[in-house]
C-alpha cells in the first residue's frame, strides 16, 4: 500500500491520458493496462485513479460515457477530448525534457 510516490503522482495524469488515447477504457482497465505495460513496475494505488479521473474530467481533458463491457456489465468508459489530446502532447514533451535532464544528471 502506501501512497504512490510523488513522481508517479505527478505523472499519473500523463499515464492515464496515454492509456486512453488509443481507445476508450473503464477505470479498472486503465489500472490494469498501466501495470501490464510497465511490467508491474509502476504500482499505482488503484483507488487513486478515480480522483484523478474526476479532476481531468472537470478540466475537460477527458469525457466519460456509460457503456457495456465485453462481459455485459455497465461501466464508465473514459475517452480523450481534443483538449485532452493537446494536453497529452504537452505533458509528453514536458516528461521527455524532464527525463532527459534526469538522465543527464544521473549518467554523467
Amino acid at each position, binding site marked *: *500500500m502506501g501512497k504512490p510516490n510523488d513522481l508517479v503522482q505527478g505523472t499519473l495524469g500523463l499515464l492515464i491520458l496515454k492509456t486512453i488515447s488509443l481507445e476508450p477504457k*473503464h*477505470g*479498472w482497465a486503465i*489500472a490494469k493496462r498501466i501495470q501490464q505495460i510497465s511490467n508491474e513496475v509502476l504500482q499505482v*494505488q*488503484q*483507488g*487513486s485513479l*478515480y*480522483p484523478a*479521473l*474526476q*479532476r481531468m*474530467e*472537470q*478540466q*475537460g481533458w477527458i*469525457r466519460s460515457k*456509460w457503456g457495456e463491457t465485453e462481459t455485459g*456489465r*455497465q*461501466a*464508465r468508459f473514459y475517452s480523450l*477530448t*481534443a*483538449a485532452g489530446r493537446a494536453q497529452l502532447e504537452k505533458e509528453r514533451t514536458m516528461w521527455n525534457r524532464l527525463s532527459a535532464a534526469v538522465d543527464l544528471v544521473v549518467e554523467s
Partner: protein
Amino acid sequence: MRWMDRLRMAMISLFWRRRETERLDAEMRFHLEQEIAERVRAGATTDEARRAAMREFGNAAVLRDEARRIWSWGWLEKLARDVRFGTRSLMRSKGFSITTIGVTALCIGATTCLFTVVRSVLLKPLPFRDPERLVAVYEHFRNQQPYNPVAAGDFLDWRAKTHGFEDMAAWQHTSFNLSSERNELPEVARAAAGSWNLLSVLGVEPALGRTFREAEDRVGGDAVVMLSWSLFQRRFGGDPSVIGRQIRLDAKPHTIIGVLPSWFTYPESQVQLWVPYASVMSQQELERHDDHGSWVIARVRPDVSLKNAMAAVSALQYQMHMQWLGAPVAEDANSRPLLEDVVHDVKTPLMVMSCAVVCMLLIGCLNVSNLLVARAAARQKETAIRGALGAGRAAVIREQMTETLIICAAGGAFGLLLAMAGTRWLTSRWHDLPRADAIHVDGMVLLFTAGVVCVAALLAGLLPALSATSKSVAVALQDSSRSVGGSVSKAALRKMLLTAEIALTVVLLIAAGLLLKSFVLLRTTELGCATDNVLTMAYSLPVKQYVTPEQRVVFTEGLLDRVRRLPGVRAVGLVTEVPGEGWGGDSVFTIPEHPIVDQEHKIDVDALTRMADPGYFSALQIPLIEGRFFDSHDRLERADRVIVSRQLARQFFPGESVVGKHLSVEWNGKVAPYEIVGVVGDTVYSVGEPAKATMYFPMLSGVGGHQMTLVVRTDGNPLTYAMAVQKQIAAMDPGLPVVDVLTIPQIVGQSTLNANFSATLVLLFAGLSLLLAGVGLYGVLSYLVTQRVTEIGIRIALGAQREQVLGLILRDGLRPVAIGLAVGVVGGAGIGFVIRSSLYGTKPLEPLVFIAMVATLLVVAAAACAAPAWRASSIDPMQALRTE
C-alpha cells in the same frame, strides 16, 4: 468549447450531485468486483481475493471524498453543512435565538423602512425629462428671504428678457367650486394655474387631449381646464369623451382640453385641476412686481451654466428693484434644483429619523454581540473540545459567523415584512409627504436589506467570534474547568460593548427629548383667541353667481343670522383666515399722517390682510384694546374702515394713539386711505411663527372672490353642531360646497402633525434603544454574578456584609453606565446642534431635556442592575461553596 465543457461539468456536479456520487460509488464497486473476479480466476479464495483487492484499492471512503472535493461547489457543500450545523445549534437554545432574531428583525426592519422612504423621496430622480436640468427659481430679498415666491411681473420679465434658460414656467395655487353636472355633490377642488409651457418645461405629455396653448394663457383667453388623473377617474369615471365637454368652475363654464397622466403629482397630489396661469389674474395683477405668489420652474440650457443663467436673471431683477425703489421688489434671484425644492421640508426630519434608526441598528448589533459573547462563554468547553479534536481557528470562527449570519438573515427576513408594513403606515400617516405615491419596496430595497444583514452580522459576530477563539486549546480547556474569576477578559469585552450601547442610547434619548419638547411647545402655543368649543367651516361665493356686493352682503348677513339662532350657538363670526390656518394674504401700505418709521424692518412694511364681520372678534374672544369693533354701519361704500392688530400698532405707530389715523392700502383693486377704528389683540397665523402685523377689513364691504371661514362658538362639543350649520348653508344655497369642517385644535394639529410625527418616531426608536440597553445591562450583570458566585460566597463566608456585596456588584454594573453617559451627553450636545433647524423654542443644550433624559437612563440602569445585585447579596455562602 473548453469553457463550455467545464460549465457543463460544473452544472452536472451542482445539480446532479447525488446521482454523480452514486455513479462514482458504482464505478468503484465495479472496479473492486473486477479485481476480485480476476484474483479468484487466478486461484485465490473469495475472502483472500476481496482482502487483497481492497488493499490494492486503498481507502474507498477517503478516495470518494477526494474525488468529490475536485468537483466545483465544494464551498457550497461546506456552507450547507455550516448552515445545517448552525441552525441545529440555534434550535437548541430557543430563547437566545428568538431574542436575537427579534432584536435584529426590529432594527433591520426599521432601517429598511426608513431607507425605502428616503430613497423614494430624497434620492430617486423626479419623473420628468432630464430632471437634473430643472431648477426652481425664487426671488431673493437680501438679509431676509432667500427663497421668496415670485411676483407675476418678475416672472414674465425674466422669461422675456433673459436667455440663459431653455424656458421658464410658473404656477400658482388656486381653488374652485366644482359645480354638479349630473347630480354629483358640489365640491371645492384644489387647483393650480400653470403657464402654458409648464408641461413642456417639465417634459410631460398629457395622457389624453392636449395642453394649454399660448393664446389661452392670457387675461380674457378661452376658459379651458386640464384634469388630474384622479379627478378624471373619480368624477368622470375615466370616460375619454370628457375631452371637449364643459364643466363649471366657480359657476363659469370651462372646456376640458386634456387629462394629466396618473403619475403626475407635481406640485402635490391634492391638485385636482389645472387652468392657464393668466386666467386667475387681471392684467394689472399680471404686471405687478410686488405681489409674490407664484412658483417658477426653469430648464437649464445644455450650453449655458446655471450660474451664468442665474446671473442674468439676478441682474435683471436688480434693475427692477431700482426701478420700484421703496416697493417690496426683490434685489436678486436665487435657484435650487427642483428635486431639492420638492423635498425641502422633509429632508431634515427624514435625515434625523435615519440617523436615529442607524443608531438603533448599532445598538441592536451591540446587544446581539453582547448576547453572543455570553453564549460563547457558556460554550467555552465545547469550543475547546472542538479545537482539541482538530478544528482550526478559522473553521470555528466560520461556524460562529455562520450562526450570526443565520440570526441576521432570519431577522432580515422578518425585518423586511416589518418594513413593508411600516412603510405603508408611514406614508399614510405622514401629512403632505412629497412623492409619497412613489414609495414602495423594490429590488434595490431587497439588496439594501441583504447588505444590512451582512453588515449587522459582521458587526455583531466578528468580535465575539474572535475573542471566543483567541485562547489556545490547552488554556481554554484548563480555564473552563475553573470558574473563579474565569473569564475576566470576556466580561471586560462585554462592558466595553455595553458602554458603547449606552452612549448611543443617551444620544438618541437627548435627540428625542429635544424634539418632544419643541413639539409640546408648538402644541401649547397661544393662538391669541378662543380655541375650545369653536367650529369652523369654509365656503366661497362664486363671483359669477353672486355678482354685486349687495348680493354677497345679503347672503352673509342672512347666513350669520340663521346660524346665530341655532340652539346651543353662543356666537358666530365670519373671517377669511382663522388663526393658525396660514399666511393667507398680505398687502403693503403707507401711513398718510407720517412716513413709516420702522427701525427693525426696513423693507417689511406689509401686513397680513383679513376680512372680518362685526361679530368675528367676540366670537373668537379676541380682545379689543382700543377703539371699537366693526358694526353694521361699516358696509358697502361706507366700509373704508380698518381694524389693526396690536403688533401693527406697536410696530408702525410707536407711542401714538392709533384710532382715527389712516392706512393707505391697495385693497379690492384701488388704493385708498382706510380709517383705523380699533386695535385688537394679536393672533398667530401659523403655529411656531411670531405674531405678524395684521389689518382687518369689513366683511360687509361685500368684496368678493375670497374663501370665507365661518366661526361658530358653541355649548359643548362643537362637531355635533356641524350638520345643523351645514344645513343652514344648504338652505341658503344648495349648490354651495362646504369644506374643512374642523375645530381649532384640529387646524393646529394639522400644521404640527409632522413635528408630532418625527418626535414620536424618534422617541419610539429611543425607547426601544433604552429597552435594549437595559436588557443588555441586566444580561451582563447577571452573567458576572453567576461567574462570581464562588468568589462572593467566600467573601460572605469571610465576613463581608450584604451591603458591601450589593455595592460591589452595583459599582461593577454602573461603571460602564457612567462612562457611556459621559460620552453620550457629549454626543447629545452635538446632535442638538445638528437638528437645530427642527427645533422650536428649544435650545440645543436644553438643560431640562438633558437632566430628564440622563435621569431616565439612570433609573433604567439602576433597575437593570438591582436584580442581579440583589441576587448576589443574598447568596448563601454554604451553598455557593458546595456547588463548586
